[in-house]
């Protein structure tokens, strides 16, 4: 009996160890690699739980396993967008690579501005409180569209609370209003061929600075004045200088009355 008891004790310990090890074998990797002209997004997930049998009670083994791999090959416009690449030094002496598109304008983050959209979700609630909740979004629409917004707002259990949903809704309303304002502002300062009329932009900035001097500061005016095309002005106003949109729109409304 003593031997059996010791054996049982060892087996129970072994069972606990196996459970812990099993839960520990929750290996997850996720990658998103930009190649010339396409993006490869890959994930691999292995989840395993295993229980041993107790010789005293003759309880059976329980084995649960899950394994999957995903691969998304996402074409982009990087190959066609690239015109030339130059390397410059930043003020902190870091090297920065600037990619220019074939039309001479700066490429958006290396030229892969336009890519197909990929949205993936895995929500596995496993043994006890263990589990994996994995989300992946690639592409301009995939990261901002309603489904993706809700997906990334979920907590670790894959749930979204009412207050978060309310804030998301308000945030999306604000972004939509800002997009409308940006369209009006850019149309006002554009010369009609995609370039910015610098005199009109200067008048608009000066007027906006009188309306909101704490927002339209000298540094903000300089950054906006440096934009030479409608696209680049739209990009900067969308992010990171969206706090400047409202005073610029008020200035536009006043100037366009005259």
């Amino acid at each position, binding site marked *: 009996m003593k031997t059996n008891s010791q054996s049982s004790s060892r087996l129970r310990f072994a069972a606990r160890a196996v459970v812990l090890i099993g839960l520990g074998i929750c290996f997850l990797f996720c990658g998103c690699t930009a190649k010339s002209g396409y993006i490869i997004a890959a994930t691999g997930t292995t989840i395993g739980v295993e229980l041993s049998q107790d010789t005293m009670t003759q309880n059976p083994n329980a084995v649960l396993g899950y394994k999957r791999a995903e691969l998304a090959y996402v074409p982009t416009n990087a190959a066609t967008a690239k015109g030339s690449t130059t390397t410059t030094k930043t003020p902190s002496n*870091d090297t920065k690579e600037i990619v220019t598109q074939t039309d001479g304008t700066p490429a958006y983050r290396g030229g892969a501005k336009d890519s197909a959209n990929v949205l993936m979700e895995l929500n596995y609630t496993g043994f006890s409180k263990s589990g994996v909740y994995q989300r992946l979004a690639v592409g301009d629409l995939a*990261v*901002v569209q309603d489904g993706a*917004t809700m997906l*990334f*707002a979920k907590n670790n259990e894959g749930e979204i609370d009412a*207050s*978060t949903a309310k*804030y*998301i809704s*308000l*945030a*999306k309303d*604000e*972004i939509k209003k800002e997009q409308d304002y940006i369209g009006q502002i850019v149309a006002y300062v554009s010369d009609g061929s995609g370039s910015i009329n610098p005199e009109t932009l200067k008048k608009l900035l000066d007027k906006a600075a009188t309306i909101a001097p704490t927002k339209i*500061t*000298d*540094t903000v005016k300089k950054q906006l004045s440096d934009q030479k095309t409608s696209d680049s002005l739209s990009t900067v106003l*969308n*992010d*990171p200088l969206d*706090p400047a949109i409202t005073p610029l729109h008020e200035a536009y409304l006043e100037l366009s009355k005259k």
Partner: protein
Amino acid sequence: MPETIRVTIKNNSDDANVLQQKLIIKGYDVAIFNAKQAVLDGTDLGGHLDYLKDVDDELFVIVAKK
């Protein structure tokens, strides 16, 4: 190194939470800190020195990076 860091200070939690979601939608990692006072010093780069304190002694600092 992040491409952009944005620091915003709001005087109430609702505005801070809406901004947090807005920045998340725009691709930022966002953290919100509560504090009684805040100092923003951008003078080395041509900015301003600001000392900020709300009447109810609570402000919300939203730090976003991407």
